[in-house]
């Protein structure tokens, strides 16, 4: 490969990976493993679970490579897979009783926040500052459909059209969900004393 692999656009890497060039797939993995794990972790809460989901996400990506066509940004495909897997993981956790939809007035005061594994994970605990933890708690308190739009917008910096593609919704739905998500997140952070402008 004469061209530096780090400079090859995503979809070209996909094409090369389709043709069995494993280095191309490894480059995609290298580029996006941290953003995908980050998204999954903010969606799920636990870094360990997030890594498991992200791992599955890349395996799924590899599995569907032959069907992929460059109709949209590659990241919308990748995060679409990640998003579906995180929602499945959240549903599974809810079925097992590990998680719940938080009510700020109820569960927070009772100290029943769901922060799976976070407190037992020294690596994560060390990384998370006080504000970060408040934001994470507030994010986890949002409904998953609100959490995902705000993460895709603010963390992944996707535009409305890309978010609509990832979430399989209309742009209008993205707008209203994002507005509501921001409002709820702002309120929760204010209650936790973490959003002083």
């Amino acid at each position, binding site marked *: 490969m004469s061209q530096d692999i780090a400079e090859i656009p995503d979809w070209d890497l996909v094409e090369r990976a389709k043709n069995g060039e494993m280095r191309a797939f490894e480059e995609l993995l290298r580029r996006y493993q941290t953003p995908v794990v980050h998204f999954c972790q903010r969606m799920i809460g636990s870094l360990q679970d997030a890594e498991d989901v992200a791992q599955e996400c890349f395996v799924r990506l590899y599995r569907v490579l032959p069907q992929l066509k460059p109709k949209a940004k590659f990241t919308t495909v990748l995060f679409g897979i990640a998003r579906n897997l995180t929602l499945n993981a959240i549903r599974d956790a809810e079925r097992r009783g590990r998680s719940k939809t938080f009510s700020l007035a109820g569960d927070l005061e009772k100290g029943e926040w769901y922060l799976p594994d976070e407190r037992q994970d020294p690596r994560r605990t060390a990384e998370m500052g006080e504000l970060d933890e408040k934001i994470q708690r507030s994010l986890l308190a949002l409904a998953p459909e609100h959490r995902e739009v705000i993460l895709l917008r603010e963390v992944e910096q996707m535009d409305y059209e890309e978010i609509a593609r990832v979430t399989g919704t209309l742009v209008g739905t993205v*707008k209203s969900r994002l507005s509501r998500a921001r409002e709820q997140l702002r309120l929760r952070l204010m209650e936790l004393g973490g959003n002083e402008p």
Partner: protein
Amino acid sequence: MRKKRLRRLVSEYYDGKSRHPERVRELIQTDPEAAAYFQELQALSSQLRSLPSPSVSPDFSVRVMQNVAQLDMERVRPRWQWVGLPAAAAALLVIATVLFFEVYKQDTRSGSNTQSQFTAIDPDVLSEVIVTRIAQGEELPWQGEAFDMFEPNTSGSEVEYEIADASIYSPEVFGRMLATLEEESDFYTVIDSLENGEVGAMRDLLAEYVLEG
């Protein structure tokens, strides 16, 4: 209701997606509530964008690539299944052919004087001789009214068929065989067209026919 609408307008404006950016900008400049919300969104966005990325486990990519390799192996397995069946069928065919000719040779060696003489005849020559003689309008030397000229001979575990009496050979069977010969001019095609048990019998009859000729 006004508050909700205002916040949505400001949220869209903040993302650069407002349909009336001039009006919203004016609103933010004139309405303290809109201005405060705009500032809160800026702060919120700044906080969210500054969230630290997690430290992904060092072996994360290794685990992914291991899973991918496993996936590749699973993909290959069914291919082998597809290849395996025809390969097994082909192998069986080869074994059956080899066995057929081994049995054929043994049968020929241990057979009658006529059969022994037949083994010395090149099948292609035999085929050519038969076709030539049929083409010359020769009559078949065998007569017979019964079709059951083959009798089962249960020697060992396999049932073999032997000619009961060549003199009662069915003319229909021979007619079919000769028709094939005329059409194909190929001894092996005739052999292939025969039913199980007919092969040995027909070989004897053909040999006898040729030798008599």
